[in-house]
């Protein structure tokens, strides 16, 4: 095999592979919606351990609405989930890909607290 043949073959192989990767990703993301979405969803403190913003750490206007996180396949996610705008959300019973994450010690990060309803209202008083 001549050098130019190998070079040309490598070049066209590269072109095909790159184009293939682009087309595959386009198909996967735009057509199949084969990826996961992660969003904040409403949380009922009486039914779950919710997150709540730690307003002591914020100088700006602070929202004290309880929330939790949910992760679900984009292909199954309702539009409100896609848009991070669900006012009511529940994982569909038959959808194993939908996972709801309640507040726990491991899940905490800066600026949020786990919502402790009795204490919260006491503090508000």
């Amino acid at each position, binding site marked *: 095999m001549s*050098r130019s043949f*190998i*070079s040309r073959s*490598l070049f066209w*192989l*590269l072109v095909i*592979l*790159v184009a*293939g*990767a*682009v087309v*595959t*990703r*386009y198909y*996967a*993301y*735009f057509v199949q*919606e*084969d*990826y*996961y*979405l*992660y*969003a*904040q969803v*409403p949380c009922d403190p009486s039914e779950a351990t919710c997150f709540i913003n730690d307003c002591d750490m914020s100088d700006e206007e602070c*929202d004290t*609405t309880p*929330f939790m*996180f949910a*992760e679900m396949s*984009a292909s199954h996610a309702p539009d409100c*989930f*896609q*848009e*991070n*705008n*669900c*006012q*009511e959300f529940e994982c569909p019973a038959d959808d194993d890909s939908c996972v709801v994450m309640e507040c726990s010690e491991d899940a905490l*990060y*800066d600026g949020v607290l786990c919502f402790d309803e009795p204490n919260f209202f006491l503090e508000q008083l």
Partner: protein
Amino acid sequence: MMLSQFTSIQYCYEYLINQIPVSLLFYSHIPTALISILFGLYLLYKVRDLQSKTLFVVLFFFALWSIGDLISWFSFLGSKATMFSWGLLDMFSVLFSLCSYYFLYVFVTKRDLPIWQKLAGFILFIPALYQTYKGSNLLLFDSTICEAWESDFAPSYLYLIQSFTFILVVLFSIYQYRKASSSREKREVALAGAGVGLFLGFFLSATWVSNYLLTHPDIEYAYNYSIYGLFGMPVLLIFLGILIVRYKAFDLKIVGAQMLVVALIALIGSQYFFAATSTTIVLVSVTLFLSLIGGYFLVRSVKREVEQREQIEKLATDLQKANERLKELDKMKSEFVSIASHQLRSPITAIRGYVSMLVEGSYGKFPDKAQEVLERIGESSKFMATSIEDYLNVSRIEAGNMKYELSDFNLKEQAEKVSDELRQVAMKKGLVLVFRSDVSGSGMVHADIGKTRQVIMNFIDNSIKYTQKGTITVVAHDDPKQKKMWVTISDTGIGMSKETLSEVFDKFVRAKNANQVNVTGTGLGLFVAKKMAVGMGGKVWAESEGDGKGSQFHIEFPELPGKANPA
């Protein structure tokens, strides 16, 4: 329950504008992508060699990366668009990093990259390709921060490849710089290496900074720092511009004016990203329009001048080549004349010798008519011998083979002797040849005695030839203060015009009116005399007030110190 903070697309848009000015995103991504792709296309259109092709590949993947990166910032376009564009970034980034080294190698060595290096590059590319193909470089789209989550492997691998390529480019540039033989080559390697190195260096440092900041949750918007990597491309383009304008890289006939106009238009055009009011937009548009018109005429005029200059340069080169060829031919001709003259000199010497003996009666007395014929044969053979000697001298001078045996001698005495020897010849023509001395110094010079006599003889002989009546005066004079001595030969002959004076010492040149007086001159005597005088450290020149007003020939030598010889 109302979640007031969640307003979908509006939320992501507001999240973005809180994070970074949108105009900065446009300014950093679009002009660089546009300029690089336009430059690449222009280059490919003008020159289709391997250098241009590899550079085009770098610029093309960079432009794709730049556009993809911009879209990935615009998460308000939807999670699909963000995931798609972000998902391709690592692949494009690895490609343009590796191809940058490929381009530098081809640009510097003017050779294609060895196959093993291509295969190695391909193998390094496979992990990035595989991740993109499988989509494993992105974990999910986080709607709360409007960003994708990257896997741990993807940014680390990209950082590794960028670091590797950067080090490779630096080491390769240093090696090639030291290997370059000329200073021009060194400068070219330095500029290309610095351009590619800085291009990759900007990306590497930006990736490093944003990766580092991502590990610090207290630092907000770590990705903001990654956009500074984009400024590596204008730096690369500036270095390429210098290489094109100053070193004619890519064989592109682009002049500085063209590059400046393009840069100016790009700068003015980029003002649109900041133009907020209709007045500023109008002002930018008017400025852009005027710059386009002015730039067009400027480039056209400079281009025309450059073309003319190039034509002149080409003509000068052709002329130089023709001149060298002529010199070569002249040398060959001199060699031929030398060989031919040597072949002629032996028989003519024999002819002269026998004719002389016949004229002198060594073989008995001849009738008067035959005697006259013999004398003519003698004169003609003498002229022929002189001509042959001249040709030989010219050949020796031009070949640099003329030998001078320098010694101290009295120039005045030699001038007087030569004058005495030629007096008979002058008298035969009815001329008076007078010698006069006005020497107050030593009268001694350091030269080749035989050749000095030949120079004086050539000048006096020349005066005899071209003087029909009157006097030839030979004067030896000096100036001990200046330490110079001269022999001046003045005649009352045909004189010379200014035009003839300027070329009288050139080879084969004779005055226009010379043939009216003497038809036997070769036009070599004065040329040989001048070359000999100069070869001995002397100088000769001629003066004349014009045609028919006589001539003066001067020979000058440095006079040796000492007192005048009373003899």
